Every structure is written in structure tokens, then in C-alpha cells.
């Protein structure tokens, strides 16, 4: 128990650092802004109580917000995916259901499952985030393009990190 708490703390710190030091500085034509810190919410144990999940999402978003100087933006998007995560998990559940006590990882449920799960969650997060960022529906399709491109990149990076984690 303590062990897994420590592990998640480590994952949390690493992902935040990765996001703040590396991914926040990526500038690729203004259309691609990968946000990989979402991965922390993705990796939390399946049976985590919902209130804890929501609070952790809130905290994660808040920290990212403080670092990127955008009060509330990441927080609201991250709380949203914290809220929908149980529904998404139910939607993509494997045929035999989830084993009790398992993590939603690539190691446990395979590449295809993890990729679908990640793509869905990241898409929801990025849609909320980018529309909150511009806070207007003018340029609707341009924002949509940003959402789609960034989602693809974020998902790609998260899958890469997960591959690395699986290999270890």
C-alpha cells in the first residue's frame, strides 16, 4: 500500500517535471501543444475512490496551472477527466472485466486497450482545455484542428512513456 503510494508520488513528480520543463516549451506551429501530465490521472488504480480521484485531478490541474500561469484552465479540464474516467473505463472495459486490484496499464490489459483508453481520455481533456483557452466559438474549426493534432501527439507521447514503463 505504502509502496504504491510512493510509486504514484514518483510518477506524479516525474510527469509534472516532464510537462513543465520539456513539453510546455515545445512550439510546433502553434497547433501542437502536448499535455502528457494527463497520464497521471490515467494510471491511478482502477478501484480508487471517486472522491480521491477528483481531488487528485484537481491538485494536478492546479499545479500545472501555477506553472503555466493559466489559473483554472488546466484545473477544470483535469477535474472533468477525473469525473468521466469511471465511465470511460466502463465503456472500454475488456470482455472479462477488470481484475480486482489492478492498474489500468498497458502491461495488464494490452496495447490496444490502453491506446483506446488514452485516446478517449486525452481527447476529452484537450477538447475542454483548448476551448476554455480561447473561450470563444469564433475560429471553431481552427481550435478543433488544434485539439485533434495535440491529442494525437499527447497520446503518442503517453504511449511511448508507457512502453518504456512496461519495458522496465
Amino acid at each position: 500500500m505504502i509502496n504504491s503510494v510512493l510509486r504514484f508520488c514518483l510518477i506524479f513528480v516525474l510527469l509534472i517535471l516532464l510537462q513543465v520543463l520539456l513539453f510546455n516549451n515545445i512550439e510546433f506551429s502553434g497547433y501542437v501543444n502536448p499535455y502528457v501530465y494527463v497520464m497521471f490521472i490515467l494510471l491511478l488504480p482502477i478501484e480508487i475512490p471517486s472522491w480521491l480521484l477528483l481531488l487528485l485531478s484537481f491538485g494536478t490541474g492546479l499545479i500545472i496551472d501555477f506553472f503555466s500561469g493559466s489559473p483554472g484552465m488546466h484545473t477544470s479540464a483535469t477535474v472533468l477527466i477525473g469525473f468521466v474516467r469511471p465511465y470511460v473505463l466502463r465503456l472500454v472495459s475488456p470482455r472479462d472485466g477488470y481484475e480486482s486490484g489492478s492498474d489500468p496499464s498497458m502491461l495488464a490489459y494490452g496495447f490496444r486497450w490502453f491506446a483506446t483508453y488514452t485516446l478517449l481520455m486525452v481527447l476529452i481533456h484537450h477538447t475542454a482545455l483548448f476551448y476554455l483557452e480561447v473561450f470563444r466559438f469564433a475560429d471553431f474549426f481552427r481550435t478543433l484542428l488544434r485539439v485533434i493534432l495535440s491529442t494525437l501527439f499527447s497520446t503518442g507521447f503517453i504511449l511511448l512513456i508507457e512502453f518504456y514503463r512496461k519495458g522496465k
Partner: protein
Amino acid sequence: MRNLLNFLARYNNLIIFLILEGIAFYLLTTGNSYHNSRLLNGVRGITNGINAKIYNTRSYLSLHEINERLAGENVALKNKIAQMVREENSVFLPVNDSINKQQYLHTSAEVIENSINKQKNFFTINKGENQGIKVDMAVTTASGVAGVIVGCSRNYSVAMSVLNLDFKVSARIKSNGYFGSLSWDGRDYKYAILSEIPQHVLVNVGDTIETTGYSAIFPEGIIVGTVDNYEKYGGDFYKISVLLITDFKKLHFVDVIGNMKKKEQLNLEKLYK
């Protein structure tokens, strides 16, 4: 009572979700005026410390380029001084009246945090209230316009970059003086849009665009960029794409410019508007 408890137990997730989302939206809608939020200022102090460290390590990599630019600026300033000295030898001796003449105060600062990849970009500089920075001061680089201060803590200030959908500045075409409103459309960090220039005005690609000074924030004649291309927009106006002279990817040293007569101008304008 039991019904109420049942209800709460059943929907507790939704309730927590709504509360947290409420807090987030509260931050989102009020937090953008940085100085209002003390909590934010406190935490920004910490993250600013970290950002300053990151910036420090990173700035070593571009020292050569910075030196080059500073040297260039020195040459320009020396030239200016040389011109002034010659003027002072003329028949009419100019009186250097510091009380009434000086309208703008310059302070230099370093950018410690900057972004260009969002729709609403801000950057942080390493000077704040203690160094005399105030909200609504103009921020420029040696070459051109950079942004406007929107919030100060004691030792840091946050400025709204030109690359922000909410940024607007009054700008004109230098060659003929027609002015319009300059803003960013969120697409490319190299270009901004100058609108409200009527179609009878002669516009050429390459024309210099500079600030007007009407807003009492920016001094007159600070270069914004050059006309990159233009097209007819709506019935009567041009939409001019301006190639920004400031490279926001390499924002390092900036000047903060305070207008000492701003209060006077605004008070007067308030009387008649």
C-alpha cells in the same frame, strides 16, 4: 433527513465534481487579473523562483547572441548621443528641464518565463512593485513592441504578450500616418493583424508599422513590424498582416516604459468622453 443523506451519498461524486469545477471556473474567470489573487501571487513566488533557475541555466546557451544584440544597441545609442551633442552646439541651447520634459521612464528587465504556444500568452519579468513597475506600463524590446504589464508582485511582474488574443494596441502606417488597431489572431507567433485601415489608403508591402501613443501606454513611434501582405476585408477596410519585428521566441531583455503623464491624459479624456 434520511432522503437528503441518501441523495448526498448517491450523488456525492457529482457534487464533489461540481464544487471542484466551480472553484476552477472561479479561478478561470477572475484569476486572469493576477494582482487580485493573493493566493496565486504567493504560489507564483515559488514557481517564479523555479522558473528563474530554469531560465538561468538556459540563458547561458544564448549568451553569444545576447551580447551581439547588446553591442548593436550600444552602437545605436552612441550614435544618438553623438547627434545630441551636435545639437547642443547650435545657437539655441536646449534646456534640459527634467520636470516638464521627460514623459517616459525606462527600466530594463529580464524575461524569466515566456510562452508563445498558447492562445493567451503571458511572460514574466524579474522586476516588480519594489522596482517601480506598475500595471499598464508598456514593455518593449530594443527593436519593438513586446507587451503590457498586467500584474505585479513585489519582485516580479506578469505582462500580456502581443501574442495574446486580448492584446490590442493602436498602431499606424509610418509612411502616411493612417492608424488602426493591431491585435493577434492566434495563428502564427511571427504575424499580427492590423485592422481598420480604410481602403483608399495606399499600403505597400514592407511599410513600417509603429505605435501611435494614443492609448497612453506605448510611447509614439515604437516599431511593431512591417507589412507582410494585405487583403480587402469587409466593405471598407484592409486586413493587413504585419510581420512582427520582435522575435518572441527569443525574448530576453526588455524595457519597461512608464508614462509619467498618463494620469493627466486619462483624466482629461475622461472629462470629455
